[in-house]
């Protein structure tokens, strides 16, 4: 690096804020500096994103002086640091007020019209944001305040238990502890750490055997067999390997992981520890979307108490297992939920997906074998070890095993997260949530979120299983079940979906970078009556190219919901 820094200094506030991440300022340049070079730079690069957060937490934005100081301390080329900061929606590089209100303008929150949010006050800015994961309380907003105190100022964030209408139902498995205090004592009183003790008893290979026997598949959307993934990581040649919990829950309409993180944080800590034991990892990363400020506080407290009680650290539960977890905050980028983009983000690079192969189980975080699972996937490991993998496999349909969390939102009487064994139909689930509000008729259901598909009222008998949805040409995705009634404007929903993908495309590949823009332009023309000859074919042509030729799942699925709406709901007729 021909590091050349602008002749700019951080403010005292910025310097102090950076100290919490980078330590006290030391002479970083000049003749007294002996160590350096690309190896040292690579070793500290993962501190870039936390350092950028520290600036924004304190002064609201990434100033030139602050960025320069980070670059000096971490040997990051300023152009790269700027490239990273501007990748994320929540790291502004221009001066902004200390308070930001993120007003959700996404599918569930805009059903009553595009939210305007509060009137802009002095010292406050209002940002219209993609889904902030509070769909059960639509319309929702999130207020973030920067200032001297870290992780301050969360507004309109509800307790998780308000989001689980089934709370207290003894049949609940994954949600059984929602409503109990998120403390270690309470966790231990409610069956906590039984699974880890069993894992330590039976050994890593047997843990993987149990997970394999359970036939658990990933809950993040791709439905990959979890046991196979764990076994693949465990079988890699010796050397460091990592665990990543994907808590970047950003699919519009999805909020189940938020409820788990806020309401049962130790479940994730325990299940990540089991995974680490099974695959031989010493370090885990919990990548949390930065909109989940309440969960951040809960998780930080949980990690601290787990560490002090010996559930994390160099000798977990007195065993030879050494494992700890670090929280990495996302910064407003849907793409970082992609399993390789998440690595780049944690490493301090732009959160762009990597080309696969190689797959994460071989070359993942920091170039090492890595197990990356969704939060819901991880916590399923607890019942698997408690009941045994075969018993777990007995729940559900045999193909889709265990229970599933569904996020009901939109035109439904009791929105929230529901846990049901696999096998029930869409109609049963809707009924469980109280059906539609009085006098409303179902127009469509969006399954799986913006990357999912619309189904029609005629399809409400569809069993919500992986096999049945696959056969119907739709996807369960992350468990979104968003209802639209007869008053909803589906054209508006389609425009929102196309705008969402245009906003969230990372920009790396042409089909997605330009395709999502052209899709948005065409959807806008087609749904607002400005259709030109050939527009619909053009939209299909773009969609097919995005699906076939994009690098990652974002581009590959960006046309799914729109296509299904055209083909099955006839929205363009």
């Amino acid at each position, binding site marked *: 690096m*021909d*590091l050349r820094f602008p002749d700019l200094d951080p403010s005292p506030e910025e310097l102090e804020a950076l100290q919490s991440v980078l330590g006290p300022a030391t002479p970083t340049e000049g003749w007294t500096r002996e160590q350096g070079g*690309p190896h040292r730079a690579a070793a500290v690069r993962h501190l870039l994103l936390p350092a950028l957060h520290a600036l924004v937490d304190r002064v609201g934005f990434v100033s030139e002086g602050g960025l320069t100081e980070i670059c000096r301390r971490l040997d990051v*080329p300023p*152009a790269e640091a*700027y490239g990273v900061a*501007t990748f994320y929606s929540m790291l502004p590089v221009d001066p902004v007020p200390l308070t930001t209100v993120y007003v959700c303008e996404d599918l569930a929150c805009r059903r009553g019209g595009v939210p305007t949010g509060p009137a802009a006050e002095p010292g406050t800015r209002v940002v219209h944001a993609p889904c902030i994961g509070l769909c059960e309380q639509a319309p929702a907003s999130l207020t973030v305040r920067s200032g001297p105190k870290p992780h301050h100022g969360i507004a309109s964030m509800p307790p998780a238990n308000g989001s689980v209408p089934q709370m207290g139902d003894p049949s609940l498995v994954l949600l059984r502890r929602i409503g109990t205090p998120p403390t270690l004592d309470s966790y231990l009183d409610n069956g906590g750490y039984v699974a880890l003790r069993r894992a330590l008893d039976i050994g890593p290979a047997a843990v993987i055997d149990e997970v394999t026997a359970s036939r658990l598949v990933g809950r993040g959307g791709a439905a990959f067999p979890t046991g196979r993934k764990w076994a693949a990581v465990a079988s890699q040649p010796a050397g460091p390997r990592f665990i990543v919990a994907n808590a970047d829950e950003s699919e519009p309409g999805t909020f189940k992981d938020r409820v788990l993180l806020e309401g049962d944080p130790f479940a994730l800590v325990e299940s990540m520890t089991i995974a680490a034991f099974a695959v031989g990892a010493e370090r885990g990363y919990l990548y949390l979307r930065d909109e989940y400020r309440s969960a951040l506080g809960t998780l930080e407290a949980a990690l601290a108490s787990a560490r002090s009680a010996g559930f994390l650290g160099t000798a977990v539960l007195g065993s030879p297992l050494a494992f700890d977890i670090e929280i990495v905050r996302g910064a407003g980028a849907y793409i970082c939920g992609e399993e390789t983009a998440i690595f780049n983000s944690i490493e301090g690079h732009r959160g762009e997906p990597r080309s696969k192969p190689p797959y994460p189980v071989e070359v993942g975080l920091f170039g090492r074998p890595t197990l990356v699972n969704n939060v819901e996937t991880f916590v399923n490991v607890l019942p698997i070890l408690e009941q045994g993998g075969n018993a777990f496999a007995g729940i559900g349909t045999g193909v889709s095993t265990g229970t599933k969390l569904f996020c009901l939102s939109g035109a439904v009487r009791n929105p929230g997260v529901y846990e049901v064994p696999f096998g029930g139909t869409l109609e049963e689930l809707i009924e469980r949530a109280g059906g539609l509000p009085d006098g409303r008729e179902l127009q469509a259901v969006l399954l799986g979120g913006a990357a999912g598909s619309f189904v029609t009222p005629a399809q409400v008998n569809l069993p919500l299983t992986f096999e049945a949805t696959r056969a119907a040409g739709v996807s369960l995705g992350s468990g979104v079940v968003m209802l639209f009634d007869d008053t909803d404007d589906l054209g508006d929903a389609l425009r929102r979906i196309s705008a969402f993908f245009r906003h969230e495309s990372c920009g790396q590949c042409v089909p997605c970078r330009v395709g999502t*823009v052209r899709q948005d332009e065409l959807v806008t023309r087609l749904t607002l009556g400005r259709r030109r000859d050939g527009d619909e074919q053009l939209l299909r042509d773009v969609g097919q190219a995005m699906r*076939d030729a994009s690098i990652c799942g974002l581009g590959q699925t960006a046309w799914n919901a729109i296509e299904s709406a055209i083909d099955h709901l006839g929205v363009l007729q």
Partner: protein
Amino acid sequence: MSDVRTSAPGTPVAPPRRKVTLTVDGTETVAREGDTILSVCRSLGIDVPTLCYGDTLEPANACRLCMVEVEGARVLVPSCSREVEPDMNVTTDSARTRHARRMVLELLGSSVDLSTTPRVEAWMAEFGADPTRFGADVATVAQPAKVDNNLYVRDYAKCILCYQCVDACGEQFQNTFAISVAGRGFDARIAVEFDAALPDSACVYCGNCIAVCPTGALMPSTEFDMRADGTWDVSRQSETTTVCPYCGVGCNLTLHVQDNRIVKVTSPNDHSITSGNLCVKGRFGFTHVQ
């Protein structure tokens, strides 16, 4: 004697690569482990179009023009980066690949000025691409060229965001890291910190970004000015490869001469010393013989 040395004199570092048998467009062929589908196609004389692929750089995987079908894969596969596997069955020319290539060309052609991109016109014809289908009122990256130094011009209206300049400036060759991709999505762009001008950046004017730019978005000022004046005429140019006079490393220079004047300096991509790269003196220090 120390026992840490593991290799005897003459021991090569890498073991020989295994043979891989695969089928490309119905023809069984033998390649080496680590070869890409693209390299196999080229050795078979199959012309797979590429834009973001530079033969001196790691595949950027960005343009998606070189997509091929691989039996069993859910989506198309980038031939530039995908390595061959035993029994792989590759189809380079199918309705799906032609559609993807056509759309990539239409998407780029409707948003970027491709007027100085070699071969693109022929590909448009071959794949039936018509970028005007989207209409004239769509988003583009049109913008004025950045002329902020006397050595080269950055005309980002022609940028397809292939990442090659960033890779050449960064880890793969120059390690200056003066530029990066900033922003996201359609707003993604090549920039220095805070979108400053080049003279305020770490740029050392090696021009190795120019050498890898596939579209003419990056151009030496000599070429940019001559094109603007209408005097740039490749048909009147000769190319002569010689050795740089500025130090003892021995970089090969290819001098592009028009009317007995050096109008551009490049270095051969297949030259073992430079791999197409030069320093500021080699690329721009020719004016003393003008």
